[in-house]
Every structure is written in C-alpha cells, then in structure tokens.
C-alpha cells in the first residue's frame, strides 16, 4: 500500500490504514479532527454547501433550529 493513493485502496485496505494510523497519538487526533469537520459539513446548515437537501438531518430525524440562517456567516 506504500505510496499508493488512499482513495484508490480497497475498502479492506482503507480500514487497515485507518487502524494503523489510529494507534498513534497524532494519528488518532488527525482522524478525530477529520471526523469533526466531516460532521460539521454533514450536519451544519445546508447554506454552507454540505448536508445536501438536509440529508444528514433527515437521516437522524433531526430538524434544524428555527429560524435558519439566511446567509452564511463563515
């Protein structure tokens, strides 16, 4: 797997890479941060371009608070 691109790996190989990274302190914190940004994109207001048609919210039977933002702050 050395020198190959992550996205070209098979699902099993990806799991293996993640498991080995997660064993290191820096790796764990890297993965945690990636997941944190991922969930921000997936569950933040759709105005920021993620959470397409509220798919993330619908999956979790969650409705965003009202009123919703009319413009992106960030």
């Amino acid at each position: 797997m050395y020198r190959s691109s992550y996205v070209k790996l098979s699902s099993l190989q990806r799991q293996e890479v993640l498991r080995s990274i997660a064993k290191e302190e820096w790796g764990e914190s890297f993965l945690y941060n990636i997941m944190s940004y991922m969930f921000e994109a997936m569950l933040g207001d759709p105005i920021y371009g993620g959470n397409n048609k509220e798919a993330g919210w619908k999956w979790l039977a969650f409705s965003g608070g009202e009123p919703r933002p009319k413009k992106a702050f960030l």
Partner: protein
Amino acid sequence: MVDVCIVGSGAGGSPIAYELANAGFSVVVLEKGENFTESDFNKDELAVCRRDMFTPPLWEQKHIINEYNEDGTFTRYDGAESGWNFWNGSMVGGSSNLMSGYFHRMKPNDFRLKSVYGEIKGANVVDWPLTYEELEPYYTKVEKVVGVSGKVVDHKFQEPRSSADFPYPPLQTNGATKWYDKACEALGYDVMPTPRAILSEDALNRKGCFYSNFCGSYGCASGAKGSGRAALLQKCQAKIITNAFVYRLESDDKRVTRAYYYTKHGVRHSVQAKIFVLAAQAIESSRLLLNSKNEHFPNGLANSSGEVGKNLIFSAGGSGSGRFVFEKLSKEQQEALMQPGVFFNRSLQDWYEFSQDGKKYKGGTIDFLFEHQNIIPRVMQEVYDSEGNLLWGEQLAKNIHKRMTTSRVLTFEVFNDWLPTDRCFVSVDEEVKDKYGVPVGVINLYGHPQDLRVGEHLAKKAVKVLEELGCEEIDYSISASPPPNLVAGGCRFGEDVKTSVLDKNCKAHDLENLYVSDASFMPTGGSVPYTWTIYANSFRVADVIKERLQVSKS
C-alpha cells in the same frame, strides 16, 4: 457632558440605562461589540457554537490563566494557545442574549454567609452590607420588567416574596417531566418548576417563546428571552455606541473625568459624564480599573484598598447526565420523550442547606434540563467505542443512528458557592497585550476544597433521580474548573474602606462619581446562577443614581 456614561450594555449596565434614560437623563452606553436584533438571530450551529461568532477571536483578545496547583505553584496558560475562552458575548445586551435564563433568587442566608455558617478556613467569607429584604423589591421588579415565567411552589427553602406568584405562567414542558415529578415524589424530594427569564406568552411588547429547541448559547429570535437588549435597551432612548472598547478611565483625586475608548479601527475617542458606571463583566471591569492607574491612584483606579480584582468567584459544582432509552419505554412514552422544542424546566433546592456530621453547610441548587440539542457535539460523542477506540464506517453510522433516534439524554447542573479565596483573583499581565495594545487580564484560578465536597453531596442526590427514572449510563463530574459564563466578584462591596472597593450603593469608596453595577460587587455568590441578582442590584443602583441626579438638578 452627558449625565451618565455606562461601560458595558449587559445585565449590569442595561437596567441603569433603562431607568435613567426613561427618567429623562442623558445616557451614553459604550459597548465593545456590535448590535444584533431579533431579525439577526438564527440557529446556525456552525457560526454560533462552533465558530463563536459572538465572542472576540482569541488571537486578537485573550486572557492569561494561572491555575493553582496543589504544590503551591501556578501553571500559566495563554488563552489563545490553549483555547481557554473566558469571553461570553460581546454584543449589545452582552451575554444576557445568549443565556438560558435559569432564574433563581438568592436566599436570605446568602446575604449573611459568615454569621449563619461561620468562618471557613482558607476562604474570605463575609456578610453582605445588604439584606435580602432590601433587594427583594428589585427581584420583583425584574420579574415584571425583564419578564420571568414560572410557578411558585412551597418548599423548604422557598425565599419570602412580596407577590404571590410570577407575573407570567410557566413555559410548556415535555411529557417526560411527569415521570420526573413522580420520581421526585417517590424519593420525597420537592418538585419545583425552574423559573425562566423567558416570556411564555406575548407581553411587554415582545413575543412569547417560539419553542425553537435552541435557547442557551443562541440569540432569541422571538424576543421572549429577557436579554438586557430586548427587555431594556430597546425600550429607552439611551445612546448606544457600538464597537467602542473602553481602555482607560481618567480621573483626578476625587472624580472620574473621561472614559477613553477605541473604535473598531483603532481610532481614539472619549466621553465626559457627570457619573460613570462600570459594567464590563467581572473580569474586564477589574482589568479596566487596574489598567487605569494614574498619579492619584498608582495601584489602579478606585484601588486604595488594594482589593480591586480580589476574591473573584465563579459558580462551583458541575454536571451529570443519564439516558432514557426506547427499550424501557412504551410507544406513547417514546413519542412524548422525543417531542422537540418544549422545555424540561425542573429544579431541586431541597439541600440549599444541609447538615453533615452535626455541622450545618450551605448547599445549593440542581437544575434538570435536556441535553443541548446541538447535533454535532451529540454525534461526536459517538466516535469512540466503549474501549476508547475510534470508530468509523458502518459501525459508527449504526451507533449514531440508534442513539440519536431511540434515546435522549437528561442532564443536570449543580450550582453551589465558589468560596472567595486569596488565590482566585484578577490581575493584568505586564507584557501580553490585546489587539488594541492594552494589557490583557490575568485570571488566577483556585477552587476551595469545600466547593467540591458540597458539589459532590448535591450531585449524588441528583443521581438518585436519574436512577429512579430508569436512566442508563448515569454519570456526573464535579470539578474545580470554572464555568466562564458564571463569574462575579473582584470589586467587593462593604462598609469598610480598607477591605472593600465599593460601598453599599456600589459606588467606589475612593471616587465620588464611579459606580460598578455588574457582578463585580458580590463578595459571595449564592448557589444560583447570577443573572437575576445582577439585574436586581443594577435596578437598585439605578434608583440611587436617579435620586442623586434629581437632587443635583433641583
């Protein structure tokens, strides 16, 4: 020259602006932040909670934090490097815009902690120069003018009231509160609805609560929340200058003469007034006084006692939680539990005072509430399995879905006295400056061991309720880590000019025309959130200033 210049527009400053402007005096309010109104507020979790849009970026303005260690040393943290954030809301109305509005009065014994409970070794406990009876009319005034909803129920530590009940009926609650009430009954605890600074119906030219499901940390789009802005500043003609950061008060040997401030672009301006009122929040008010030293006050303005910044207090206690799971509930109960929007709103004050080993202790308050509805932190709690390994992929997706759709967390918060000590105080740093070039505040932190013991005692009582309710994963944590939104002290009021900064009317002993009307005046804090008491005291100080200005006018 204006009659009154107020530094800060939050719960400490807004009642003064409201009372004096409505009495016909000229009032200028200097506010460091911007103005937002109902139409600006929304429930954008990313902006409000994850990118802190209402507080200054820490790389521009920060604190230095010195945490006391058991071996007598302090560990120094740079606020920007550590991300330790003590800002609460820089905006017109201050953090009262963002509060949850759990409103409890202090109780008569809170005003005389030393006489009732005695000295505590290592703590600077004193009686207030003010009694509950003197403050009571102002608590009542806040109920009516700011708007407090609730229902008075008789219980062991119910404080005396001049009116029978709250002027506004309680907010709607979730069906699960019925289970809670039953559980408390079984345990012999007194059920008490939590009073809230939220209008339950249209009143005071404001809308009643919309039950948006997102209250604490967010600005209120309905105007139901009793922020200093919605309830007071929007209802008076006080002139509010925004983006005005006051960095120095100038004085001669008797009087404050000018408040100097920087605009957003660093341009220097000043305001002259007959009377100055400082209400920048406890830490920042002490910082401003210390940064305003001059030839008459070489140790800081109003600081001939050396007491400015001393005896900083927070609220001690902590929090805990338990989880309702669908497996233990009927279909009907599941639906009731998941109903969004409506509140939980239950408190316990059965142990506001308690005895242990024959000694009487001051206890505190427990509030029960649903876990905050913000979805991102709730989901992020699931990324570790029970052994502490990171999860991803299908397993993570499965766990998240189950937890979010078939369970709900009930949390509790414990509020007890953060005892004032010599080791917990505000100073200013000799080298580190903010973006304006002004020395930053240093927060020296220490929690008295008794705070933890009392917190622990209360948390165990709250846990019993969660157990009785059949909750799972019950857990709690009582810590000496300070809640940055519950801060007071630093400019104690008292009779003795040698041991206090302010007199009974919150006027500086050293100066004829300087008042401090935020939580700085409090020598001890009570075992409740501070906001109601800050409002009430500020209305009291407003009456003092009003009378003084009327006398000088006639």
